[in-house]
């Protein structure tokens, strides 16, 4: 009798251990992520300015937010930036991975060169990029002193093009990382299938298009998650490279939110923009996560 009760306790303990192990993480997440999100949503309906205060103002902050023309600018910039950044990084990453997978001599040397930008923060590389893009001292100047007089590259000074320089620097930072993810995917593909297809006379182009790239689907998905997460959090880069300028031409939602919350003492509007940003992220990520995680079952 006693033995069985003991065993019973043990099994029950065994059943509980996994949940116990998980619980600190769950608790932290509930408080530090979802609790804080709720708090921030709540703040967006208050008159908070320098510190959180709790006078209810209804939709006033949202109303003000949509009257601000550079909130719109920042949303449009986000659209341009995120789509270009994700697409270009994926293309370059995939291309480099395929090329690097062709039994390249010196792969061991090239790989860390492609990867290292991910190791640096933009507080570090921002200045270098700023110099490089500056027409007065950077690429334009160098090309001109090397004799290409008509060379022009002044995007960073042009409010219609400045956002593309942000894309350029961001692509520089992460495309190598994406390359590593695709390379890992390519190395996992079964060569037997390829050999069989080669026997059937398939061209390299067709091999990639019909067999290899479709098999990389998981890598595409991981790349998408990582890239979109980085795109949303892009902040240091804009601050270091353009400071949101020329004018407010390279403002992104993250910089907008930060400036309203912390430098303009309009925490309510900052929280409202954060709420909209979170809802947008949720609208994109939830269907994706749902589809991804369901499939596993």
């Amino acid at each position: 009798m006693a033995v069985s009760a003991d065993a019973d306790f043990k099994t029950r303990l065994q059943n509980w251990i996994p949940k116990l192990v998980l619980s600190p993480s769950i608790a932290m997440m509930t408080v530090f992520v979802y609790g804080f999100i709720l708090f921030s949503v709540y703040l967006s309906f208050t008159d908070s300015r320098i510190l959180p205060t709790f006078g209810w103002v209804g939709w006033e902050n949202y109303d003000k937010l949509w009257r601000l023309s550079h909130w719109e600018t920042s949303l449009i910039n986000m659209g341009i930036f995120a789509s270009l950044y994700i697409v270009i990084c994926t293309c370059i990453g995939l291309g480099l991975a395929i090329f690097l997978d062709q039994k390249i001599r010196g792969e061991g040397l090239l790989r860390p060169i492609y990867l290292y930008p991910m190791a640096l923060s933009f507080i570090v590389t921002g200045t270098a990029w700023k110099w490089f893009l500056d027409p007065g001292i950077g690429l334009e100047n160098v090309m001109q002193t090397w004799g290409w007089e008509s060379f022009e590259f002044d995007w960073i000074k042009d409010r219609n093009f400045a956002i593309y320089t942000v894309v350029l620097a961001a692509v520089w930072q992460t495309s190598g990382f994406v390359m590593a993810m695709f390379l890992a995917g390519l190395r996992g593909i079964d060569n037997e299938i390829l050999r069989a297809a080669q026997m059937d006379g398939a061209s390299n182009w067709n091999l990639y298009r019909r067999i290899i790239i479709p098999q990389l689907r998981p890598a595409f998905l991981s790349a998408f998650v990582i890239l979109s997460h980085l795109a949303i959090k892009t902040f240091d880069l804009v601050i270091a490279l353009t400071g949101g300028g020329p004018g407010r031409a390279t403002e992104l939602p993250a910089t907008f939110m930060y400036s309203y919350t912390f430098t303009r003492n309009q925490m309510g509007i900052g929280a409202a923009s954060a709420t909209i940003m979170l809802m947008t992220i949720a609208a994109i990520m939830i269907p994706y996560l749902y589809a991804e995680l369901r499939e596993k079952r």
Partner: protein
Amino acid sequence: MSQATQDTAIRTGRVTRTLIYLVLLLFGLFYLLPLYVMLVNSVKPLEEITGGGMMNLPQVFTIEPWLKAWSSAQIGVDPTGLKPYFWNSIKMVVPAVIVSTILGALNGYVLTKWRFKYDTILFGLMLFACFIPFQIVLIPMARMLGIIGLAGTTWGLALVHVVYGIGFTTLYFRNYYAVFPTELIRAAQIDGAGFFQIFWRILLPSSGPIAVVSIIWQFTNIWNDFLFGASFADANSQPMTVALNNLVQSSTGVKEYNVHFAGAILAAMPTLLVYIVAGRYFVRGLMAGSVKG
């Protein structure tokens, strides 16, 4: 796993190969360019930099900026250089990386091998948490640290980094363990092995590759973080990035670009080292785990 290091079976012609090499080299140059700019300018005297020609090799080579950035540059009132802040960063990064990796491994283990109702939803929530912009958590987080008495301490900073890192570490380990044969676990269970025994004896020994990925990811993110470091540290726990920012962003006065660049490279040294040393295992680890989505 036997194919781990195998190259593709695709064959290419000579012209194509030359082109491939050319493209690869060009991209190599593209990636190296900013580092080159930083390096050459960190060993020039200041007059040479302000004189223009940022791509030129130094006419006069000097190591002075590096020494200055490390040990005598003005960070605040004291000319301490970056040195003391380096240790602050280490003290924050090491525990944060270790704890978040361990938690991620355990979470991944539970979520794949001890499944329960709604576990996918829980995981989904954890994953979504990776996407919140950090700017919105600053104020509530500061309050929370104040309440638990960790405000302004290295431990408080480490805690913050653990909290916002476990989403990714869990993702990595979960995907890695998902393809680990469950039969082995079941067999061990029948043999009477408990939860931790199974983890310790069976899963952990083969977790090397994904642990590398998780450690590299966490190490770089935490080392490079500025926002949390600036907001939650006090005078005795400010990390390297904050000091670097103080060096580079000084509001008025002469900007010593050569010292700035030297400082920037110094601040990036640990992460660069991690990438160069562990980079090989990185691709292997990615291949083994996270890519399986």
